C-alpha cells in the first residue's frame, strides 16, 4: 500500500494499527476472501480502504449493525468492525451495547484517540473530564466513558486493551480477539498527533503496563478496565472460556423453494392478535 495514498497524518497511531492488523489478518488461519471488514466514518474508519479485504465502509456510527447483518447472513465469513471512539461509543453507542448482547462472533476494534479526529478535535465519549478543545473551550463536562467496563457489564466475553505504540502486544491481542468465538471488544489506545496533545505516545509509554493474563474475577476485570491515570493496564481483561456463541443459520444459496411456500400457504393463517 503506497503510504501516500493513506489519508492519515504522518505519525498517526492508525499507521501501526493498520500494519499490525494487516499482519494478523495475513497470518490468520482464514482465507483472505473470507474476511470482511466494516467501518463507520472517521479517520479510523478509513482503515478498510488500506487493507486487502472485502469491506463495507458505511455511515458514521453504524459499522456494527452492518457487521451483524453480514454475520447473520453469512456465518462463514470472519467479520471485523473497525472504527473510532466517536463512531463506536458516541454516534454508535446503542449498537455497541446491543451488538455485544447478540452473542455473535464479531470482532469490534476501536481506534481510540479520545477525540473526534476527522471533524477536527472535538470531545469524544472517551475524552477526559475537563479537557479543553474548540467546541469545549471551558473543558469537557462529561464523565469520561469507560468502554471496556461497559462492554463487560453488557456481557462481552472477550474484552481487551492494547496500544498503538506496542505492535507486538497489539499483534497478540488482535489475533486472539479475532480468533475468539463470540463478540470481542478491543480498545486500542491510539495517539492522535494532530488533536490530542495530552495522550501522546510518550504519555502512554510512561503509564502503560502489560497484564500477563486475563482476570479470573469479572469484577476485578471491571475495576482494572475502569482504571485510568498513572497506571494503565493493557492486555486481555476478560475472556470467558464458557461462552456459548450464537450460531447463524446457513441461508446463502439455500433458497426458499416453491414447495415450501406451498406448504406455508396450506397452514392456518399466521396472524398477530
Amino acid at each position: 500500500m503506497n503510504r501516500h495514498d493513506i489519508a492519515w497524518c504522518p505519525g498517526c497511531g492508525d499507521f501501526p494499527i493498520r500494519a499490525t492488523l494487516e499482519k494478523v489478518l495475513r497470518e490468520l488461519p482464514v482465507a483472505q476472501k473470507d474476511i470482511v471488514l466494516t467501518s463507520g466514518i472517521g479517520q479510523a474508519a478509513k482503515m478498510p480502504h488500506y487493507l486487502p479485504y472485502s469491506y463495507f465502509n458505511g455511515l458514521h456510527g453504524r459499522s456494527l449493525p452492518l457487521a451483524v447483518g453480514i454475520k447473520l447472513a453469512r456465518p462463514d465469513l470472519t467479520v471485523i468492525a473497525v472504527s473510532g471512539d466517536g463512531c463506536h461509543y458516541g454516534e454508535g453507542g446503542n449498537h455497541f451495547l446491543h451488538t455485544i448482547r447478540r452473542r455473535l462472533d464479531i470482532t469490534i476494534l476501536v481506534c481510540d484517540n479520545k477525540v473526534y479526529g476527522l471533524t477536527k478535535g472535538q470531545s469524544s465519549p472517551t475524552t477526559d473530564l475537563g479537557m479543553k478543545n474548540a467546541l469545549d473551550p471551558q473543558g469537557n463536562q462529561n464523565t469520561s466513558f469507560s468502554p471496556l467496563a461497559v462492554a463487560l457489564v453488557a456481557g462481552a466475553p472477550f474484552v481487551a486493551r492494547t496500544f498503538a505504540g506496542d505492535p507486538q502486544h497489539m499483534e497478540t491481542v488482535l489475533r486472539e480477539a479475532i480468533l475468539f468465538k463470540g463478540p470481542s471488544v478491543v480498545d486500542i489506545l491510539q495517539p492522535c498527533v494532530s488533536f490530542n496533545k495530552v495522550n501522546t505516545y510518550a504519555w502512554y509509554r510512561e503509564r502503560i503496563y502489560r497484564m500477563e493474563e486475563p482476570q479470573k474475577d469479572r469484577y476485578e476485570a471491571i475495576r482494572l478496565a475502569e482504571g485510568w491515570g498513572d497506571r494503565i493496564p493493557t492486555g486481555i481483561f476478560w475472556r470467558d472460556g464458557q461462552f456459548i456463541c450464537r450460531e447463524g443459520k446457513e441461508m446463502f444459496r439455500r433458497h426458499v423453494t416453491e414447495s415450501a411456500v406451498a406448504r406455508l400457504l396450506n397452514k392456518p393463517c399466521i396472524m398477530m392478535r
Partner: protein
Amino acid sequence: MEFNVLIGGEAGQGMFSVELELTEILSRLGYHFFATKNYMSRIRGGHNYHMIRVAERPVHALSGKPWDMVVAMDSAETERRHRPALREGGAFIGADRIGQLEAEATKTFQDVTVTSTLLTGLILSFIGADPAAAQAVAPDEPARTALAKGREFAARWGLEGPRSLSPKAGDHCKLDGNQALALGALLGGCQFVAGYPMTPATSILHYFSAVAPEVPVHFEQAEDEIAALNMALGASFAGLRSMAATSGGGFALMTEAVSLAGMTETPVVVIDAQRPGPATGLPTRTEQGDLDFVLHAGHGEFPRVIFAPGSVEEAISLARRAFDVADRWQIPVFVLTDQYLADSVQVMEGRVPTKILRRETPVFGAGYRRYEITDSGVSPLTYPGLSEARVEIDSDEHTEDGKITEDIGLRARMVDKRLRKFEGLRQEAVMPTRFGDRRATTVLVSWGSNRLIVNEAVEALRAEGIAVSSIHFGQVYPLTPPMARGLARKRLICIENNATGQFERLLRRELGLKAAHRILQYNGECFTVAGLVERVRKILG
C-alpha cells in the same frame, strides 16, 4: 344480498377472536367476505370494533351501509356509538345476551373464551350458513359443539337465518395485507428481515419469525430502526435479498441508511406501513401521509422506486417485484402500505403464485470492480467470499473499485451513472390499472390501499346512472408519461387518505396532470363505499 356486522367492545374482550374464528369458517365454507378493524393504542379497555362483511360476490371494502347486526361485548360504549347505525330490523346483541353466552361458555365449556365460538355459531346461523357444512369445517370437537350451541341461541332469540347468503367464492385463500406483503417478499426471494416492533408493520415481522423454522429466512429484532436498515444492508451486501419493515416514525430513523443504500447501490426493500402522523399520531389507525416523505427520504440524490399495492393480489405481486427491482437495479425500493390494508382480511380468488424470483450470483476474478461505470448505470454485483474478487463498498463518493475519491470529474460521472438507472426503471414501470367505462369523463384517481373501495364506488355510481371510471397507481414513483395517456382531458378526482393531497401534487409535478377535485380523509379511518359515493356525488352535483 350481503351481511354487515360490527363487533365492538373493550380491548381484550374477545372481538378479535370472533373475527378470527368467523372468518376462518367463512373462508372454509367458501364465502366471500371482507373484515377489518378499528382499534386503540392500548392492550385492555378503550373501544375497539371489528367489521365483517359477507356477500355473494367478491367484496374488498366496507360498504358503509347500516349494520345488519351489532354485537356489543361491553356494557355501553358499543351500543352508544354503533347502535344508531344499525339498520331498521337489524339484530343487536347486547350485554344481556353476551352475558347469557358467557354463562353458557363457562357452564358447558368451563372456559369463558368459548363465547367467541358461540357468537360465531350464532352469526353463521343468522346468515343462513349450512349447519352441516359449518360443522364439517370446524377445527375440533369442542368447536363443533359450541357452534351448534351458538345456533341454538340464534334460534332462541329469533335470529335464525333471516339473511340467506350462499357461499360463492371458488378456490381461494384468505389473507390480510401484511401477510400478502410477507408472502410476496418470500416469493421475491427475500431471506433476511430486520425490524423493530411498530404498529402496523409488526405483523410482517411476525410472519418472518414464524416461518423461519421452516424456510431459510431469518428475522432479527434490531435495537432500533437505524440498526434494522443497516443490518438489512449488511445482509444484502453479504448476499441475501433483504428488507426492513416499519411505520413512519421508524422510517424516519432509517432515512440516513436509505441514502447509504442509494450511494453504495446496495439492493434493499423497505416497507412503510403508514399510520396517521405526525410523530406518534394515532398509532393504530390508518393514513396515507408518508408518500412525500418516502419519496424524498435520504439526503442527496439517487434513484428509487415506490410501490403502493391496492389489493392483496397486488401486495403479493408488487412486494415480489420490489425485491427483483431492488436487486437488478441495486437500489432501495419502497412499498407503501397502511394500517387499513395491513389489518384487512380479504378473500383472494385464484392461485397464489409460488414461483420464486431469483438471480444467479455471478463470480468474478481479482480485477472485479464493484462500481464499474456502465451504460445502464448498473455495475456487476457479487458478494464477498465467493472468489478472489474483493467487494469494496463505500459511503463516500468512490472510484470504480470502491475507494474514497475526491476527484470532481469522477464524482460527476458517478452521479450520472447512478441517476442513469432511472432510464431503465422508467421503461419497466408498472402501469396503473383502469376500471370502469373508459369513456366516462370523470376519473377517480387512487393509489395504495384505496383501490378496491374506489372500484366498488365506481360500480355503485354506475348503478345510479353516474358514469365514472377509475385509475389506480400501484407504482407511485417513478411516474412516466405513458401512465398519463388519455388522462389530460379527463376530469380527475384524486382520492387520498391524507390532508394535503400528496399524490395529486406529485401528478402535477411529474406528469403535468391537474386534478379538478380532491377527496381527502385524514381522521384515521378508511373510506367506505357509501361514504365515497356520497362525496363523489356531491362533487358531480
